[in-house]
């Protein structure tokens, strides 16, 4: 089953969009069959974001748990995803 990656951001934020693309590429490079990416609009799903304990834009949840409370580097995300795929 594919790893579920959810990136939380505020729509319209230019800086978030740039960073998001770089991170999304990490997931796409690993293959959509292995990593399922979902962009989450914080405003639309505020309840879910708060449930996870998210406090700022750019956070990433993996398989329903907040793994990166703040925007990670592409390298760190790749490292974490590869670790999970191997495990």
């Amino acid at each position, binding site marked *: 089953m594919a790893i579920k990656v959810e990136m939380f951001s505020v729509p319209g934020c230019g800086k978030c969009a740039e960073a998001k693309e770089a991170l999304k590429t990490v997931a796409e490079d690993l293959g959509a069959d292995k990593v399922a990416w979902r962009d989450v609009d*914080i405003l639309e799903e*505020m309840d879910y*974001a708060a*449930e996870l304990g998210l406090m*700022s834009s750019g956070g990433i949840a993996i398989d329903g748990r907040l793994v990166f409370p703040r925007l990670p580097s592409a390298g760190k995300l790749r490292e974490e995803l590869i670790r999970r795929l191997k495990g």
Partner: protein
Amino acid sequence: MLTIGKIAEQALVTTDTIRFYEREGLIRPARKSESGYRLYTEEAVRRLGFIKHAQECGFSLAEIRELLELRSDDASCCDDIYKLAVEKKLQLETKVKALKAMSQALSSLIEICSRDRRSLDECPILGALEAGIAQQRRNDK
């Protein structure tokens, strides 16, 4: 030009508050009088109102400083402010959830109290708290 007392009166804050904001870098007098009294323009009253309202929305002083900088920076845009507002709402919602969980935990403790005035050794609330701590230690191991 207005004295600190006058702007305090108009903004409905104390002069101590204004001096505190000054130490925090949120407001500055336009100049000082010959005798060293702080003098402000009308803009200071609006700035104080801004700070007060931002605090009521849950923004910390550091965040308010950021908002004030964005307010005066021509390069900032709507997105910057919008993002700060959404993030602040998110932080508050996360805290509300955490507080609700605490309230729920307390409800459970209150429910197990039999109110029959036992000695503290037999207090079910204290017992539950100790058992909770013991469980935590086992989980940590």
